[in-house]
């Protein structure tokens, strides 16, 4: 029995004794990776400013998580990629024009990051316990606090330095202020408008503009099953339906014309793709049962269109997701999973 002297070294733990290789940090880093195509297109169109703003967000997010956890003597989790992801998402949701010393606005990304990580995430207990999407709270905070700086949009000049890029309005801004005809005029024709919206050659937040690049990242996440179709499709579907029903305006009177809207413009513009695939699907702040996710997605879509059509802001994705975040505990309670055998016996 020579071998049995090992007995006192036996490891004892509760079943199961094998685990899948998936880890939280692998998920977070993979999501970071899937955002890179959209980020690079933002970098390409808006130049160095985009890189600086995003980097500033990432660095401030990671540092604020590090210092907060040090200060309250919690386990350090900055390596898990979630603070990095918050920073990256926040950066991609900010206008590139924030990298500016005159007027001085580079404090805006930093403040947004600290709010996102410290107030929204860590004060609520850290990863897994936050009610609201941290990046979106960070963005909402700076949008309300610095309304002017947050609504200066630069032209996508695709010039590397682009330090003197002209300011312009976003497509949704033009749509809201001057109507569809003006928007089409700005882009030449309708086909060109769709094409530019799709490839991302338009004014907007750093990472939101290129639908193509966002779809590449989203496709990767769907393929890896890190996200499922439920939230994005119900979100986008609701936006498309409501845009078609309520999005039309009579060119003469300016009044709402039912069933005359252009769903494609609404789908391709603003932060919708970024929001639907990467922000609304945040595990922590969305319902965890699939049917609840569909309700959540529909709610996000409806609120987005309510704000876009009737609200004071041209874009509503951020507030829509944040408002729906509030309802997640309710949705989770109301829509539990279907317990095996609880449904009526099926005949085979």
């Amino acid at each position, binding site marked *: 029995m020579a071998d049995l002297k090992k*007995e006192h070294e036996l490891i004892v*733990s509760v079943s199961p*004794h094998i*685990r899948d290789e998936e880890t939280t940090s692998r998920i977070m880093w993979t999501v970071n990776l899937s955002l890179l195509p959209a980020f690079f297109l933002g970098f390409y169109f808006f130049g160095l400013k985009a890189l600086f703003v995003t980097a500033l967000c990432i660095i401030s997010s990671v540092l604020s998580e590090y210092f907060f956890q040090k200060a309250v003597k919690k386990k350090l989790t900055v390596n898990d990629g979630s603070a990095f992801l918050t920073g990256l998402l926040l950066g991609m949701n900010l206008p590139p024009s924030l990298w500016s010393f005159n007027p001085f606005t580079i404090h805006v990304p930093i403040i947004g990051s600290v709010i996102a990580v410290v107030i929204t995430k860590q004060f609520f*207990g850290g990863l897994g316990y936050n009610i609201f999407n941290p990046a979106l709270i960070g963005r909402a905070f700076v949008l309300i606090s610095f309304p002017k700086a947050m609504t200066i949009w630069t032209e996508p000049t695709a010039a590397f330095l682009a330090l003197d890029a002209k300011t312009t309005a976003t497509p949704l801004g033009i749509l809201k202020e001057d109507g569809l005809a003006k928007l089409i005029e700005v882009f030449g024709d309708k086909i060109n408008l769709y094409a530019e919206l799709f490839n991302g050659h338009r004014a907007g937040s750093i990472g939101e503009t290129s639908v193509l690049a966002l779809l590449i990242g989203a496709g990767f996440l769907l393929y890896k099953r890190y996200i499922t179709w439920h939230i994005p499709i119900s979100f986008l579907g609701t936006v498309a339906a409501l845009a078609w029903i309520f999005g039309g305006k009579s060119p003469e009177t300016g009044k709402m014309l039912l069933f005359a809207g252009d769903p494609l413009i609404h789908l391709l513009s603003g932060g919708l793709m970024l929001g639907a695939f990467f922000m609304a699907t945040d595990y922590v702040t969305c319902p965890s049962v699939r049917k609840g996710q569909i309700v959540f997605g529909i709610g996000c879509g409806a609120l987005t269109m309510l704000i876009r059509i009737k609200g004071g802001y041209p874009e509503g994705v951020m507030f829509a997701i944040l408002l729906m975040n509030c309802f997640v505990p309710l949705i989770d309670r109301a829509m539990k999973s279907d317990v095996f*055998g609880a449904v009526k016996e099926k005949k*085979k």
Partner: protein
Amino acid sequence: MTALATFKGGIHPPDKKDIAKGRAIKEAKSPQRVVIPLSQHLGAPCKPIVSIGQEVKKGEVLGEPGGFVSAPVHSSVSGKVIAIAEFPNAMGRMINSIVIENDGKEEWTSLKDNPDYIKLSSDELREKVKAAGIVGMGGAAFPTLVKLSPPKEKPIDTVILNGAECEPYLTADYRLMLEKSAEIVEGLKILMRILGVNKGFIGIENNKPDAIEKMKDAAKNEPNIEVCGLEVKYPQGAEKMLISALTGREVPPRGLPMDVRVVVQNVGTALAVYEAARYGKPLIERAVTVTGEGIKNPANLMVKIGTLISDIVEECGGFKDSAGKVVSGGPMMGFALSSLDVPVTKGTSGILVIPKEGFVHAEEYGPCIRCGRCIDICPMGLMPSMLSILSEKGHYEDAKEYNLFDCFECGSCAFVCPSKRPIVQLVRLAKSLVKP
């Protein structure tokens, strides 16, 4: 090809059956002494009917059932009773057990061959099952007699033999199906006769095509018996999942298979039933897979009940240096042993030695990130994430709202959890602290 029978949810762990599947079942060495616990089953422990110093033969009754939900235990060797005292079992509990010094003579109590067993009445056959002390050999060790005695208001129309063997690593049932296919089919026929049923299924996961072929061949003259391939997915062999896969019937929450007119038995149990009906042979040995990356010579052994696991490990060449954990049963639901000096019982399906590397220690788990993976794969349609959070925070009563007691602890949730949360442990904790 039509879709394979299966259930909703489930996981695909690496099956690792190659380690032991090629090894034919061989008789394990008869140990110097056996430790036979008086409780090897769910239900009341047995009452000992032998005394210290008494000579017993192989197959002699050592303990009589302590109630209806109970099963007698028999001596697996011939020899002398040297102790009746509490000994630890694989789960670490102290169980009153009878220790027998093996005289090496292997003298049986009388065994009679009765080739006409199939003509016996269902009550006579039931008596044979009862006397043989047969319990479910898939792991839960529920007394078989109880399953074969459904109350009148619960008619049974289907018997399912469970050959899924969905636990990774384990291959004992697979070997039995290859080597004892005819006997297993006979066992199923006996079970069907006892219950007065004319529909029998044998469900086998599709990663064992040769076993499916063998069993189909053995059952080719039995029009009432259908051998079905099942999708390879854990926990395909869980009773409720198997019933759902093969019949489309869902056992209601907290219900039993008989609520949907089904009785499920393991293939090993069917073999024991056959041997009891034909020879009057009590359940004193069983097929055990000795496997894992940490054992020198993996094997499928026919082991006498009461053999210490240390004896078996020694027979299989001992541990490799990498060995870190020894599990009684499979990797998903088995128990990690704190000592190797515990006996093989009627429910021991495998002895698994897994390496130190790759272990996740309980204290290293993270917070629930609500990714929902566990909800997607829970075969019972529960929300393991919520159960674990509520239990972690001490809200044990609230866990009942999330169907705490429907969980059968298959471990799929903990397997997929990216935060490596000890969900099964937290569920067990909650279960132990509230009343159903």
